[in-house]
């Protein structure tokens, strides 16, 4: 295992210390239980927006805490959803009296832990709504399974909900923004290499030099199919087709196109991916009105990418363009 770390068990703690040193102007870090809150929170009358999940997906979620996005983030152990007491404490810390939205990625562990936290917070008199993102079309959805994973749309939903909360919308309205993003966004990912979970010390799966995994999530899980490596244009087609046909997206739709890096894939490749994804979107008559390109929801040092489409309306465009000031996403301020 080649990583720039000390001991595997210290990764999350030391990362949090680094974040605290680096971004003290934007965020405050609490330890035991671990969570990151806006330095200027809680904000009276503003809905608190919080998310959380396993570590190893940086900048998500801790890098998105700040004005116009999240009020708090709860980092679990690497790839392990945080515990209810983290989310409970974070919920209490950001509560400005207007209620708190939990943005939860659809994983059994995240759901159960967030549910427990919400129950506990409600018992303490805090109004809590939870919206579960589940945008990964690589997973066949069904009533009888865990459903689709929450992936790329989560980042976009956090931005939109943060902006809506900043406008002092009600808890229900901010949650509605999240539900809209959940309903209008779809993602698919692939990997060239596995990642290595620090305490495991070796790659989660073996992927030969000439093979790739299509339909991976963000936890080093093996994907749906393994196949020989292809030129990127063909890979992008394999990702875009199931995304576009899922909702489906229709000619004339205005979309945000998000090309995400998995952590080990450099920007030069992401632009080559964006190029093809943009052309395919155009061919389907989709109008790419906004984009995001970079490593925003990662899987440690995995090489790979995910593509997310989110159908936009006027309100979402305004929320997207609204100022945001976080360590990982910043504009307009």
């Amino acid at each position, binding site marked *: 295992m080649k990583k720039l770390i000390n001991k595997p068990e210290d990764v999350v703690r030391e990362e949090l210390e680094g974040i605290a040193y680096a971004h003290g102007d934007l965020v405050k870090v609490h330890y035991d239980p671990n969570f990151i809150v806006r330095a200027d929170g809680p904000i009276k009358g503003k809905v608190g927006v919080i998310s959380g999940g*396993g570590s190893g997906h940086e900048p998500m979620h801790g890098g998105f805490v700040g004005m116009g996005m999240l009020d708090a983030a709860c980092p679990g*152990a690497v790839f392990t959803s945080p515990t209810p007491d983290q989310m409970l404490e974070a919920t209490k810390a950001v509560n400005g009296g207007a209620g708190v939205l939990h943005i939860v990625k659809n994983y059994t562990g995240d759901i159960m832990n967030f549910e427990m936290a919400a129950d506990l917070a409600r018992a303490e008199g805090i109004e809590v709504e939870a919206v579960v993102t589940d945008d990964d079309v690589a997973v066949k959805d069904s009533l009888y399974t865990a459903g689709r994973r929450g992936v790329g749309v989560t980042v976009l939903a956090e931005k939109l909900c943060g902006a809506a909360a900043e406008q002092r919308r009600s808890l229900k309205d901010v949650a509605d923004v999240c539900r809209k993003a959940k309903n209008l966004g779809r993602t698919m990912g692939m990997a060239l290499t596995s990642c290595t*979970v620090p305490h495991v010390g070796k790659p989660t799966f073996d992927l030969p030099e000439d093979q790739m995994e299509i339909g991976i999530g963000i936890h080093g*899980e093996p994907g749906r199919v393994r196949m020989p490596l292809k030129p990127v244009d063909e890979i992008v087609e394999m990702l875009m087709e199931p995304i576009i046909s899922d909702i489906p997206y229709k000619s004339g739709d205005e979309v945000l196109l998000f090309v995400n890096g998995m952590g080990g894939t450099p920007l030069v490749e992401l632009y080559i991916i964006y190029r093809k994804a943009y052309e395919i979107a155009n061919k389907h008559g989709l109008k790419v009105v906004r984009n995001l390109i970079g490593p925003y929801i990662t899987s440690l040092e995995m090489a790979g990418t995910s593509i997310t489409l989110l159908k936009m309306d006027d309100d979402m465009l305004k929320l997207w363009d609204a100022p945001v000031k976080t360590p990982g996403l910043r504009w307009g301020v």
Partner: protein
Amino acid sequence: MSITRDDALAWIKAVAGVINTNSTYLTQLDAAIGDADHGANMDRGFKAVLNKMPEISDKDIGTIFKTTGMTLISTVGGAGGPLYGTFFLQAGTKTVGKMELSLSDWAEALESALSGVLMRGKAELGDKTMVDALTPAVNALKQAIKDNQPINKALGLSAEAAKAGMEGTIPLVARKGRASYLGERSAGHQDPGATSTYLILNAAAETWKEVA
């Protein structure tokens, strides 16, 4: 004869030990169809439980189990945390105030633990989860009581049933938890949670061998 408070404590300690010993194994199983953390998660949780031991060693069995559950919930995370947390919380609720348990008390506690896991995780038998080890273990225990088996024999039968259930997860296609994302590719692998459940119940059979 019955399971005393000290027996209960010994079991929790034994579980912490067996989880630690098998941490890499459990994580390997999770790497194949999950996200390679089940062993590390459980080990972190039971280490925390061990640290709580001094505070609870003079308490009743219900308190011991509930504290174990609370500690797992606040230190494990993932699916394992809430599920095993609920498991021990429910077992604790059934055993509140008790300083010792009869075999029936234990069977009731375990059945209650199972319903807690079912309620929390909403998995069904055959979904390729810990439920597939826990359900047959509870059933075997109840049957053994009906058959008037001695405690050690009953616990052994229960652990064996858990083992068979665990092994039975191998051919299954997962419908709950992370492994479900793999679809057909999840078949051919043993479920990590079913495996930890077997280890936990087997630790009871081993630790309480002398009880009967």
